[in-house]
Structures are given as C-alpha cells and as structure tokens.
C-alpha cells in the first residue's frame, strides 16, 4: 500500500466512523468511537508518539504490533514474551532496534514507556495490568479483561487509584459497520429490539501446534481452565458486548449449558456452549459457540420488530409483510364497495422458512478498526482522559462471559452481580 493510498483509506475510514457516530443517539451510545475518530481526524500526528511496550507477542500480540505501527500517534517501544519463539517473530516485525524482553518486570524497569499493551494469556492480564499501573504506565489490554470477575473489578479499581487509563480491546466498538448498524437501530429502522442471537461457530480444534521448545499449556492456554474460560472469554466476550450495546443494558441473569462434546482431546474448556442471557423487559441474548460446525460462522443477529441487522455480514433487513390471503382482500374490497379480480390459486399454507431477502448493505470498512483503537488510546494517554464509555462496556462484557461460564459450570441460573465496581470515566 502506498502512503497516498494509506492516507486516503485512513481518511475514508475515519469519515465513515464520524458519519456513523454523528447524531445524539449514537454519540451517546458510542461516545468512545466518536471521541477517537474526532481526535484521530483532528491532529493525530501532533506531538511525540505514545510509547507502547507490548507484553505477549503471540499471534494476537503480533497483530496488535502491526496495527500500532499503522497508527499515527503510537509506537512500539518495547516487546516482551516469555517464549523466545514468539519474541523472535515479533522482533522481525517491530524491528531490531526495539528492545525485547523475556520478563515484563525487566521491560518496566527499563523505563522509556508511556503505556503497556497486554496480549498475554487471560489469567495473566490482571497481574500484568497491575504491574504496569504500579509502574506509572497506562494500560491497553486485550479482551477479556481477566480470568475472574473479581480480577476484572480489581483492574478497574487499580486503574482508578493509579489515575491511569485502562482500555480494553473490543474492536467492534470502533468498526464503521457496527457503528452504522447502531445508528440505524437507534433511528428505529428495525423497530424494538427484543433479541440478539449471536453465534461463533468454527470447525477446527482451536488447538495450535506446539513447538518442540514449548509446552502445550504455554501455547494452547485457551484450552485450559487455569488460563481461560475458553469460548466464553476468547470469543463470546466480543459478542456479549455487542448484545449489551444494542440492548443498551446489562443482563439480569444467565442460564447455560456447556460441554466438551466433540474435541475430547484432553482440553478442559467447553467446545460447545449455549446460553440465554435475560435482560429487562424479557429481552434476550441467545448465544452459542461450538468447534465442529462452521456453517453459521460468526454473527450477531440483532432482531427488532420491523427488521434485523447482521453486522458481520454488514446487512440490514426489513421484515417481510405477511402474505395477505386473496379472499381476505376480496372481503376488504367488498366492504369498500370495490370489485376487483381476486388472484386465486395461491397457497393457503406457506412454509415458514428463513427469509432470504438480500437486505441492504451497512457499508464496509476496508481499514482495520484496531488501528483506531490505538489512535484513540494514544489520544487518551496524551490527554490523560479515557475514551468515554469504553471501559464500562468492556467490563460488563467480561463479567457477562464469566457469569455465563459459572452458569454452565453450576448448571443453574446466575444473576447479575450486585457488587460490581462502579466505572467512572471521562
């Protein structure tokens, strides 16, 4: 990509975000995106770049490094991983001049950072965040926040006490298609939203190949309960955030069933999860994730009384009006004193198959929204003010995912915790 093309597509991306977040309803529902895009569009390159130390340089960490490199106000100033293989790959991306560490404490002690980026196994997030905050640094952390609800709250509290920014990675919150979807939902285009049906279905083992110099738990930490809640924290968190976002609420309770149903390979986390999250007024998020059938893939079906939005497909659909039977129309005509030819011979039985109308495009973003996350984070660090509303969304999404895990483990309904930490932002 040439610089001109990069600038053009970046500008186009920001324009889309700004257009999608224009208007009071969306600005209130996605204030972080509006703030990030305005900041990025205004003077993203002004002042020194925010220096980031990336802890965890596995697949996701390296993807983050690439996105940081695209941003105009952040730079990768250090990298860290306990596994040399990952660190070598990250060094090849970040450049040999970027200091590399095998221990995050050494990286923090070396100074020269404004913030850390955490892309480590989930059970390490809270400790790494605390270490960064204690070192006087701001923190950007991959979702989910932490392995336990208590640790999620502790991260929020630690950041507040330290007076530092804590931002969690939820890229859908910056995606133009999602923001446009929200704008159209807020405008009433799909009526009253009563249900979000979300799924993330894959057909693979979710197991990474383990190099000779690493352990399975080191590489496949997502499959072990000590480090991860599996599908709930690594995948569902994203979609539960979308559910909360579009329903503009947090759940009141959750029921669910989880099982290791197909991949009986020694993993400890479920490979099938099915949950129902209840919201006020009887609204629901119905969530499933599994690892042996990919037909329905990843999607959130946001279902309103007059339409449906499927943001992953980038489409909005209007409800198809029910077919009027010919003789009903004849009666209406007669009452009006009108005699019209009656189209007869149609079916009086209509199969209630899925509606396959093509719908309308919500627009696509050819740009990576993760870049905007970092530009927003960079501006937040510079200003000393978090992107408004973002942390509460992320916190509640993480709590929802972990509460779902508890509901499945216990086989009973779990009510939304009443002792969550209050998130004060902005």
């Amino acid at each position, binding site marked *: 990509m040439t610089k001109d093309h990069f600038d053009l597509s970046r500008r186009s991306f920001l324009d889309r975000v700004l257009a999608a977040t224009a208007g009071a309803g969306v600005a209130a529902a996605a204030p972080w995106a509006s703030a990030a895009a305005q900041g990025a569009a205004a003077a993203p390159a002004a002042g020194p770049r925010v220096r980031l130390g990336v802890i965890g340089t596995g697949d996701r960490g390296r993807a983050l490094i690439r996105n940081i490199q695209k941003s105009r106000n952040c730079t990768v100033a250090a990298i860290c991983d306990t596994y040399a293989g990952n660190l070598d790959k990250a060094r090849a991306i970040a450049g040999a001049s970027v200091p590399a560490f095998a221990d995050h404490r050494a990286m923090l002690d070396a100074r020269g950072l404004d913030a850390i980026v955490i892309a480590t196994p989930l059970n390490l997030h809270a400790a790494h965040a605390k270490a960064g905050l204690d070192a006087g640094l701001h923190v950007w952390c991959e979702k989910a926040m932490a392995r336990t609800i208590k640790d999620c709250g502790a991260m929020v509290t630690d950041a507040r006490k330290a007076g530092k920014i804590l931002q969690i990675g939820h890229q859908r919150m910056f995606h133009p298609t999602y923001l446009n979807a929200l704008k159209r939902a807020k405008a009433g285009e799909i009526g009253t939203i009563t249900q979000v049906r979300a799924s993330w279905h894959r057909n693979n083992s979710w197991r990474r190949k383990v190099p000779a110099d690493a352990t399975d738990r080191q590489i496949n930490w997502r499959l072990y309960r000590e480090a991860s809640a599996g599908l709930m924290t690594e995948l569902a968190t994203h979609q539960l955030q979308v559910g909360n976002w579009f329903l503009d609420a947090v759940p009141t309770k959750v029921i669910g069933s989880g099982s290791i149903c197909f991949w009986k390979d020694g993993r400890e986390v479920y490979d099938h999860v099915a949950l129902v999250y209840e919201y006020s007024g009887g609204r629901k998020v119905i969530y499933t994730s599994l690892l042996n059938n990919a037909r329905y893939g990843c999607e959130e079906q946001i279902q309103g009384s007059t339409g449906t939005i499927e943001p992953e497909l980038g489409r909005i659909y209007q409800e198809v009006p029910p077919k009027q*039977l*010919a*003789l009903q129309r*004849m*009666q209406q005509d*007669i*009452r009006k*004193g*009108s*005699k*019209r*030819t*009656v*189209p*007869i*011979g*149609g*079916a*009086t*039985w*209509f*199969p209630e198959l899925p509606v396959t109308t093509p719908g309308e495009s919500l627009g696509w973003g050819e740009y990576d929204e993760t870049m905007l996350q970092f530009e927003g984070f960079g501006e937040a660090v510079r200003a000393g003010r978090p992107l408004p509303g973002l942390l509460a969304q992320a916190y509640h999404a993480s709590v929802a995912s972990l509460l779902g895990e508890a509901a499945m483990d216990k086989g009973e309904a779990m009510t939304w915790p009443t002792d969550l930490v209050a998130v004060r932002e902005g």
Partner: protein
Amino acid sequence: MTRARIERFAAMGTRVELHAFDGATPAALADARRAVEAVDDALTIHRPSPLVALNEALLAGREAAVTDAILLDALDAAAAAHVATFGLFDVAADRRTGGNWTMVRFDRAGGTVAASRPLALDFGGLGKGLALDRAGAVLRDAGVTSALLSAGESSILAFGPHPLGGGWPFAIPHPIDADATLLEIELRDQSLSISATVGVGTDAPERAALLRPGEPAAIAPPACAVAIAESGAAAEALSTALVVADPARAARLLRDRRDTRFRFDLAHQESRVA
C-alpha cells in the same frame, strides 16, 4: 351493503373459507361448516374414518360393506370422474400398490366395494370438491343467495351474484412468475379447481404427488390446469386429470371446452391456453 358472514376453519388438510352474503345466518354458516367437516370425517386417510376402514379391507383382499352415505356418494363421484376423464382421475392409483380404478368393483345398490388386488383409495381433491358442493347445498337450503366457498384457494365454489353485482372475477396467477397471470375468468354458479405441479404450496406437508394412472413416477413437468364445472367434484376431477394427462388425452379433454378447461405447460415458461 349486504352483511357478509365468514366462517374460516381448517379441514380437508387445508384452510376452508365460507363467505356468505345475502340471507346468511350464523346457524347456516355453522351447518355449512359441519357439512365440510362431515366429508372430512368420512374421507380422511389420516385418522380412523369410513374410508380408512374400507381401505383396510381392500388392502387385506376383502370385500367391504359401505354404509356411510358420504363415502357412497364419493365412490359414485369417483366412478363418474374416472369415466369422464378417460381414466385420468383415479382414486385407486397408487405407486405402492400398483392399483387403479379398473380393479375396483363398486356395487352402489348393494353397498359393497371389492378389488381384484390389494389396494387403497385416496379421494384427494375430489373430497374438497364434494365438501364444497355439500356446504353450498346447505347454504342454498338455508336461503343464502350469494356465497363464495373456498378450500385452500385452489378449490372454489361460487353461487348467486357477486355482492356488488355480476359474476365473481378471479385471476389465476402464474405459479412460478409472480408478476404474470395465466388466466382471468368470472364464475357464475360454478365451481373452479386449480391443479399444479409447481408453485407455492405444492411442497406443503402431506400433499400427495400427482400421478398419471399406470405410470410409476409422479408427474414432474411444470404444469398448471384450471377446470370450471357445475359441481366442485367435477371441477376437481377435471383439473387433476388435465395436469396429469399425456398430450393425446389432454387434447381430448380440452376439445370444445376452451372456456372452461385450461392447461398451461410451464416447462418453456410460455402460457398456452389450449
């Protein structure tokens, strides 16, 4: 404006609607509904019924005595339809048994039915036509002078004038092309039946395949037939016969009946009124 009374209910495996205008009372509508349900009770093959009892005997190779008046009338109608359609409408045609109506011995006077080989009868659309005929008779006897009766919108019986005067205007939509119309027609004291191998509703649960008697496979080419007759039973038999007919017999059925019998070969997406 004449007040309309409408009775809608499920029977005969479809949605039945009785629209009565001049002279209709709730009691008349209720009686007409019971007439339809009585035919359903007599001719259904999906639950115990006089027809099921008859079929059990015929499949077991036994002669059966039939006492149910509706079933006897239906057998009469089936025999007449078989003749009138050159054997194309056949309530005994069944791929599983290999049966056909020529194997059936029906003694109306003696009230017995027997068959030369095990077989079963299925009155299909003829039952809907008979039901509408009987319901129409009930309404007429009750003094109703204008009514439209429908069984699944593919079987229509209209008597008396339209409430706004004149006949009852209908259009037969193209079963594949929603924007096209095959035929426009007006009914006056007539019944209309539509049979098609394609279109919405042809894949409804439990809808029997259309068979050409003596041939092993269901009729597959896309086609639609429309028949207008004085009775619902006759219209049903004719539309079924037209849609399953081979070209020669279709031509015989259509000869000199250009205003009341229609067959549309939809294989080439050309609406052809024979």
